[in-house]
Protein backbone atom coordinates (compact mmCIF):
# COMPACT_ATOMS: atom_id res chain seq x y z
CA UNK A 1 0.00 0.00 0.00
CA UNK A 2 1.27 3.47 -0.78
CA UNK A 3 0.14 6.78 0.62
CA UNK A 4 0.42 10.50 0.15
CA UNK A 5 0.63 11.46 3.82
CA UNK A 6 3.95 13.25 3.28
CA UNK A 7 2.55 15.31 0.43
CA UNK A 8 -0.64 16.14 2.33
CA UNK A 9 1.48 17.23 5.25
CA UNK A 10 3.53 19.50 3.04
CA UNK A 11 0.36 21.06 1.62
CA UNK A 12 -1.05 21.65 5.09
CA UNK A 13 2.43 22.70 6.25
CA UNK A 14 2.56 20.60 9.43
CA UNK A 15 5.39 18.45 10.76
CA UNK A 16 5.31 14.75 11.54
CA UNK A 17 5.21 15.68 15.21
CA UNK A 18 2.19 17.96 14.66
CA UNK A 19 0.30 15.25 12.83
CA UNK A 20 1.24 12.70 15.48
CA UNK A 21 -0.12 14.99 18.19
CA UNK A 22 -3.33 15.64 16.28
CA UNK A 23 -4.20 11.94 16.03
CA UNK A 24 -2.60 10.73 19.25
CA UNK A 25 0.22 8.49 18.05
CA UNK A 26 3.99 8.76 18.23
CA UNK A 27 6.09 10.57 15.65
CA UNK A 28 7.85 7.37 14.65
CA UNK A 29 4.50 5.85 13.71
CA UNK A 30 3.86 8.67 11.24
CA UNK A 31 7.40 8.27 9.96
CA UNK A 32 7.10 4.51 9.34
CA UNK A 33 3.71 5.01 7.65
CA UNK A 34 5.15 7.67 5.34
CA UNK A 35 8.08 5.46 4.37
CA UNK A 36 5.66 2.60 3.64
CA UNK A 37 7.10 0.36 6.32
CA UNK A 38 3.93 0.13 8.34
CA UNK A 39 0.32 -0.28 7.24
CA UNK A 40 -1.90 1.64 9.68
CA UNK A 41 -5.17 0.25 11.04
CA UNK A 42 -8.44 1.50 9.62
CA UNK A 43 -8.99 3.65 12.70
CA UNK A 44 -5.65 5.36 12.22
CA UNK A 45 -6.18 5.79 8.48
CA UNK A 46 -9.56 7.40 9.14
CA UNK A 47 -8.04 9.74 11.70
CA UNK A 48 -5.30 10.78 9.29
CA UNK A 49 -7.78 11.43 6.48
CA UNK A 50 -9.95 13.45 8.85
CA UNK A 51 -7.04 15.74 9.66
CA UNK A 52 -6.48 16.41 5.95
CA UNK A 53 -10.20 16.67 5.22
CA UNK A 54 -10.07 14.06 2.46
CA UNK A 55 -11.45 10.57 1.87
CA UNK A 56 -9.24 7.68 2.99
CA UNK A 57 -8.77 6.34 -0.52
CA UNK A 58 -7.49 9.70 -1.69
CA UNK A 59 -4.60 9.34 0.72
CA UNK A 60 -4.07 5.58 0.87
CA UNK A 61 -3.93 3.50 -2.28
CA UNK A 62 -3.54 -0.20 -2.98
CA UNK A 63 -0.48 -1.39 -4.87
CA UNK A 64 -0.18 -4.41 -7.16
CA UNK A 65 1.39 -6.69 -4.57
CA UNK A 66 -1.34 -6.17 -1.92
Amino acid at each position, binding site marked *: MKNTVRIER*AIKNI*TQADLADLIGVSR*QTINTIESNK*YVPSTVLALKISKVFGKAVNEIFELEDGD
Partner: protein
Amino acid sequence: MKGRFLFPHYCRWIGLLLAIPGFVLGYFNVYHEFFFKQLTFNEEQLQVVFGCGNLTDEIALALVVCGLMLIAFAKEKIEDELTARLRLDALYWAILINYLGFLLFEIVFFILAKADVYYHDSNLKVDGINSDYGIYNFFTPLLIFIFRFNYLLHYKKGNLVSPALRYLNYYPYRKIGEKGTWICLILIALLTWDVKFPTPIDVYIVLCYPLLFMFLLMWVYSRNPEEDELTMHFRLESMQLAVYVNCALLLIANFAFYGFDFLAVMLINLVSIPLFFVIRFTYVSNKAYWQARNEMKGGII
Protein backbone atom coordinates in the same frame (compact mmCIF):
# COMPACT_ATOMS: atom_id res chain seq x y z
CA MET B 1 -0.38 -5.78 9.07
CA LYS B 2 0.06 -9.40 8.14
CA GLY B 3 2.11 -11.86 10.14
CA ARG B 4 5.77 -12.16 9.21
CA PHE B 5 8.50 -14.74 9.79
CA LEU B 6 6.12 -17.70 9.41
CA PHE B 7 6.59 -21.19 7.98
CA PRO B 8 4.51 -22.47 5.02
CA HIS B 9 1.17 -24.06 5.88
CA TYR B 10 2.24 -27.68 5.23
CA CYS B 11 4.88 -27.37 7.98
CA ARG B 12 2.09 -27.92 10.50
CA TRP B 13 1.83 -31.57 9.43
CA ILE B 14 5.58 -32.06 9.46
CA GLY B 15 5.51 -30.56 12.95
CA LEU B 16 2.93 -33.10 14.12
CA LEU B 17 4.99 -35.94 12.66
CA LEU B 18 8.00 -34.75 14.67
CA ALA B 19 6.31 -33.75 17.92
CA ILE B 20 4.17 -36.82 18.59
CA PRO B 21 7.01 -39.39 18.36
CA GLY B 22 9.10 -36.92 20.34
CA PHE B 23 6.57 -36.80 23.18
CA VAL B 24 6.19 -40.59 23.23
CA LEU B 25 9.94 -41.11 23.25
CA GLY B 26 10.40 -38.44 25.90
CA TYR B 27 7.71 -39.94 28.12
CA PHE B 28 9.22 -43.41 28.04
CA ASN B 29 12.71 -42.04 28.46
CA VAL B 30 11.92 -39.93 31.51
CA TYR B 31 9.39 -42.12 33.32
CA HIS B 32 10.31 -45.65 32.20
CA GLU B 33 14.04 -45.23 31.67
CA PHE B 34 13.86 -46.32 28.09
CA PHE B 35 16.78 -45.51 25.79
CA PHE B 36 18.34 -46.62 22.55
CA LYS B 37 21.53 -48.56 23.32
CA GLN B 38 23.03 -47.52 19.99
CA LEU B 39 22.92 -43.91 21.15
CA THR B 40 25.16 -44.39 24.16
CA PHE B 41 28.51 -42.78 23.64
CA ASN B 42 31.57 -42.35 25.78
CA GLU B 43 33.80 -39.34 25.84
CA GLU B 44 36.25 -40.58 23.23
CA GLN B 45 33.59 -41.18 20.64
CA LEU B 46 31.99 -37.82 21.11
CA GLN B 47 35.16 -35.88 21.77
CA VAL B 48 34.89 -32.33 22.91
CA VAL B 49 31.46 -30.95 22.20
CA PHE B 50 28.86 -33.46 23.20
CA GLY B 51 30.01 -34.72 26.55
CA CYS B 52 29.17 -38.32 27.30
CA GLY B 53 26.03 -40.31 27.97
CA ASN B 54 23.00 -41.41 26.07
CA LEU B 55 21.49 -39.16 23.45
CA THR B 56 17.92 -40.54 23.51
CA ASP B 57 16.55 -37.75 25.68
CA GLU B 58 18.26 -35.07 23.61
CA ILE B 59 16.72 -36.47 20.47
CA ALA B 60 13.28 -36.63 22.08
CA LEU B 61 13.58 -33.01 23.19
CA ALA B 62 14.83 -31.86 19.79
CA LEU B 63 11.89 -33.61 18.09
CA VAL B 64 9.38 -32.02 20.48
CA VAL B 65 10.83 -28.52 20.21
CA CYS B 66 11.20 -28.56 16.40
CA GLY B 67 7.76 -30.12 15.98
CA LEU B 68 5.99 -27.64 18.24
CA MET B 69 7.78 -24.72 16.59
CA LEU B 70 6.55 -25.79 13.16
CA ILE B 71 3.00 -26.33 14.45
CA ALA B 72 2.94 -23.01 16.30
CA PHE B 73 4.31 -20.81 13.54
CA ALA B 74 3.01 -22.39 10.37
CA LYS B 75 0.86 -20.06 8.30
CA GLU B 76 -2.88 -20.52 8.39
CA LYS B 77 -4.53 -21.39 5.10
CA ILE B 78 -5.77 -17.84 4.94
CA GLU B 79 -3.28 -15.57 6.60
CA ASP B 80 -4.57 -12.08 7.35
CA GLU B 81 -4.55 -9.27 9.87
CA LEU B 82 -6.85 -11.10 12.26
CA THR B 83 -4.53 -14.10 12.52
CA ALA B 84 -1.65 -11.74 13.21
CA ARG B 85 -3.67 -10.10 15.97
CA LEU B 86 -4.56 -13.49 17.48
CA ARG B 87 -0.91 -14.52 17.39
CA LEU B 88 0.03 -11.50 19.48
CA ASP B 89 -2.73 -12.35 21.95
CA ALA B 90 -1.59 -15.98 22.17
CA LEU B 91 2.09 -15.04 22.55
CA TYR B 92 1.18 -12.52 25.25
CA TRP B 93 -0.56 -15.19 27.32
CA ALA B 94 1.90 -17.99 26.55
CA ILE B 95 4.88 -16.07 27.84
CA LEU B 96 3.03 -14.55 30.78
CA ILE B 97 1.49 -17.81 32.01
CA ASN B 98 4.70 -19.71 31.44
CA TYR B 99 6.80 -17.39 33.56
CA LEU B 100 4.23 -16.75 36.26
CA GLY B 101 3.86 -20.53 36.48
CA PHE B 102 7.60 -20.86 36.77
CA LEU B 103 7.83 -18.24 39.52
CA LEU B 104 4.98 -19.87 41.43
CA PHE B 105 6.59 -23.27 41.03
CA GLU B 106 9.92 -21.94 42.26
CA ILE B 107 8.30 -20.50 45.38
CA VAL B 108 6.30 -23.64 46.16
CA PHE B 109 9.27 -25.87 45.39
CA PHE B 110 11.52 -23.78 47.57
CA ILE B 111 9.12 -24.00 50.51
CA LEU B 112 8.63 -27.74 50.04
CA ALA B 113 12.35 -28.33 49.66
CA LYS B 114 12.98 -26.41 52.87
CA ALA B 115 10.30 -28.47 54.57
CA ASP B 116 12.00 -31.57 53.16
CA VAL B 117 8.74 -32.93 51.76
CA TYR B 118 9.14 -32.93 48.05
CA TYR B 119 12.78 -32.96 47.09
CA HIS B 120 13.66 -36.58 47.77
CA ASP B 121 10.73 -37.98 45.85
CA SER B 122 11.47 -36.04 42.70
CA ASN B 123 11.94 -38.10 39.55
CA LEU B 124 14.01 -35.48 37.89
CA LYS B 125 16.49 -34.28 40.40
CA VAL B 126 18.70 -31.50 39.20
CA ASP B 127 20.97 -29.72 41.61
CA GLY B 128 19.42 -26.64 43.09
CA ILE B 129 16.65 -24.86 41.25
CA ASN B 130 14.16 -25.62 38.52
CA SER B 131 13.81 -29.37 38.87
CA ASP B 132 10.80 -30.84 37.06
CA TYR B 133 9.42 -27.57 35.83
CA GLY B 134 12.70 -26.83 34.07
CA ILE B 135 12.24 -29.87 31.89
CA TYR B 136 8.68 -29.00 30.94
CA ASN B 137 9.62 -25.38 30.55
CA PHE B 138 11.47 -26.27 27.36
CA PHE B 139 8.21 -26.50 25.50
CA THR B 140 5.47 -25.04 27.70
CA PRO B 141 5.53 -21.57 26.04
CA LEU B 142 4.95 -23.22 22.65
CA LEU B 143 2.24 -25.52 23.99
CA ILE B 144 0.32 -22.69 25.69
CA PHE B 145 0.68 -20.63 22.52
CA ILE B 146 -0.70 -23.41 20.31
CA PHE B 147 -3.68 -23.98 22.60
CA ARG B 148 -4.54 -20.31 23.00
CA PHE B 149 -4.13 -19.49 19.31
CA ASN B 150 -6.25 -22.39 18.11
CA TYR B 151 -8.86 -21.73 20.78
CA LEU B 152 -9.25 -18.15 19.61
CA LEU B 153 -9.19 -19.08 15.96
CA HIS B 154 -11.51 -22.07 15.95
CA TYR B 155 -13.77 -21.90 19.01
CA LYS B 156 -14.27 -18.17 19.15
CA LYS B 157 -14.72 -17.97 15.40
CA GLY B 158 -17.42 -15.54 14.39
CA ASN B 159 -18.00 -14.15 17.87
CA LEU B 160 -14.49 -13.09 18.59
CA VAL B 161 -14.52 -10.30 21.11
CA SER B 162 -11.09 -8.83 20.71
CA PRO B 163 -9.91 -8.68 24.30
CA ALA B 164 -7.68 -5.72 25.00
CA LEU B 165 -4.26 -6.81 26.20
CA ARG B 166 -3.36 -5.16 29.45
CA TYR B 167 0.05 -3.74 30.16
CA LEU B 168 1.54 -2.23 33.27
CA ASN B 169 2.08 1.52 33.30
CA TYR B 170 5.40 2.86 32.09
CA TYR B 171 5.96 4.58 35.37
CA PRO B 172 6.96 3.02 37.74
CA TYR B 173 6.91 -0.57 36.43
CA ARG B 174 9.13 -0.21 33.36
CA LYS B 175 11.69 1.74 35.36
CA ILE B 176 11.72 -0.84 38.16
CA GLY B 177 11.91 -3.64 35.60
CA GLU B 178 14.86 -2.07 33.79
CA LYS B 179 16.90 -1.28 36.88
CA GLY B 180 16.12 -4.59 38.56
CA THR B 181 17.13 -6.54 35.46
CA TRP B 182 20.47 -4.76 35.23
CA ILE B 183 21.23 -5.29 38.90
CA CYS B 184 20.36 -9.00 38.69
CA LEU B 185 22.38 -9.49 35.50
CA ILE B 186 25.43 -7.80 37.02
CA LEU B 187 25.11 -9.90 40.18
CA ILE B 188 24.81 -13.10 38.16
CA ALA B 189 27.80 -12.15 35.99
CA LEU B 190 29.90 -11.43 39.07
CA LEU B 191 28.92 -14.74 40.64
CA THR B 192 29.57 -16.65 37.44
CA TRP B 193 33.11 -15.26 37.38
CA ASP B 194 33.60 -16.56 40.89
CA VAL B 195 33.60 -13.30 42.74
CA LYS B 196 33.21 -14.38 46.32
CA PHE B 197 30.15 -13.18 48.13
CA PRO B 198 29.66 -13.65 51.83
CA THR B 199 26.29 -15.38 51.38
CA PRO B 200 25.98 -19.12 50.79
CA ILE B 201 25.68 -20.05 47.13
CA ASP B 202 22.15 -21.45 47.24
CA VAL B 203 20.77 -18.22 48.63
CA TYR B 204 21.94 -16.50 45.47
CA ILE B 205 20.51 -19.25 43.25
CA VAL B 206 17.18 -19.16 45.00
CA LEU B 207 16.92 -15.36 45.03
CA CYS B 208 18.73 -14.04 41.97
CA TYR B 209 17.08 -15.98 39.18
CA PRO B 210 13.45 -15.66 40.26
CA LEU B 211 14.09 -11.95 40.86
CA LEU B 212 15.63 -11.62 37.40
CA PHE B 213 12.57 -13.25 35.83
CA MET B 214 10.26 -11.02 37.82
CA PHE B 215 12.04 -7.84 36.71
CA LEU B 216 12.26 -9.05 33.11
CA LEU B 217 8.54 -9.81 33.11
CA MET B 218 7.85 -6.31 34.41
CA TRP B 219 9.93 -4.92 31.56
CA VAL B 220 8.22 -7.07 28.94
CA TYR B 221 4.71 -6.37 30.21
CA SER B 222 4.92 -2.62 30.72
CA ARG B 223 4.05 0.18 28.36
CA ASN B 224 6.45 2.28 26.38
CA PRO B 225 6.32 6.01 27.22
CA GLU B 226 4.42 6.45 23.95
CA GLU B 227 2.21 3.52 23.08
CA ASP B 228 0.24 3.05 19.87
CA GLU B 229 -0.50 0.41 17.24
CA LEU B 230 3.02 0.50 15.82
CA THR B 231 4.37 -0.39 19.27
CA MET B 232 1.99 -3.34 19.33
CA HIS B 233 3.27 -4.41 15.94
CA PHE B 234 6.86 -4.27 17.22
CA ARG B 235 5.78 -6.28 20.25
CA LEU B 236 4.32 -9.09 18.18
CA GLU B 237 7.37 -9.37 15.96
CA SER B 238 9.76 -9.23 18.88
CA MET B 239 7.89 -11.85 20.90
CA GLN B 240 7.74 -14.18 17.95
CA LEU B 241 11.43 -13.74 17.17
CA ALA B 242 12.23 -14.23 20.86
CA VAL B 243 10.51 -17.62 20.77
CA TYR B 244 12.49 -18.53 17.62
CA VAL B 245 15.78 -17.53 19.19
CA ASN B 246 14.85 -19.42 22.34
CA CYS B 247 14.19 -22.61 20.37
CA ALA B 248 17.38 -22.26 18.34
CA LEU B 249 19.48 -21.68 21.45
CA LEU B 250 17.75 -24.57 23.15
CA LEU B 251 18.52 -26.97 20.31
CA ILE B 252 22.16 -25.93 20.25
CA ALA B 253 22.51 -26.02 24.03
CA ASN B 254 20.67 -29.31 24.24
CA PHE B 255 23.42 -31.11 22.39
CA ALA B 256 26.41 -28.93 23.22
CA PHE B 257 26.12 -28.71 26.99
CA TYR B 258 24.78 -32.10 27.93
CA GLY B 259 26.85 -33.84 30.55
CA PHE B 260 28.69 -30.58 30.99
CA ASP B 261 26.00 -28.62 32.72
CA PHE B 262 22.33 -29.28 32.24
CA LEU B 263 21.50 -26.44 34.58
CA ALA B 264 23.12 -24.03 32.12
CA VAL B 265 20.78 -25.27 29.38
CA MET B 266 17.75 -24.66 31.56
CA LEU B 267 18.90 -21.18 32.52
CA ILE B 268 19.59 -20.24 28.90
CA ASN B 269 16.15 -21.54 28.06
CA LEU B 270 14.42 -19.59 30.79
CA VAL B 271 16.16 -16.28 30.29
CA SER B 272 16.39 -16.15 26.50
CA ILE B 273 12.74 -15.33 25.67
CA PRO B 274 12.27 -12.23 27.83
CA LEU B 275 15.88 -11.14 27.39
CA PHE B 276 15.83 -11.33 23.61
CA PHE B 277 12.42 -9.66 23.62
CA VAL B 278 13.57 -6.60 25.55
CA ILE B 279 16.71 -6.26 23.42
CA ARG B 280 14.88 -6.52 20.11
CA PHE B 281 11.88 -4.47 21.19
CA THR B 282 14.04 -1.68 22.59
CA TYR B 283 16.16 -1.74 19.43
CA VAL B 284 13.28 -1.44 16.93
CA SER B 285 11.45 1.15 19.01
CA ASN B 286 14.55 3.30 19.29
CA LYS B 287 15.46 2.81 15.65
CA ALA B 288 12.07 4.14 14.56
CA TYR B 289 12.50 7.04 16.98
CA TRP B 290 15.93 8.01 15.66
CA GLN B 291 14.87 7.66 12.06
CA ALA B 292 11.99 10.02 12.63
CA ARG B 293 14.34 12.42 14.42
CA ASN B 294 17.03 12.32 11.75
CA GLU B 295 14.54 13.00 9.00
CA MET B 296 13.41 16.11 10.81
CA LYS B 297 17.02 17.23 11.11
CA GLY B 298 17.52 16.53 7.42
CA GLY B 299 15.01 19.22 6.61
CA ILE B 300 12.11 17.01 5.56
CA ILE B 301 9.28 18.37 7.61
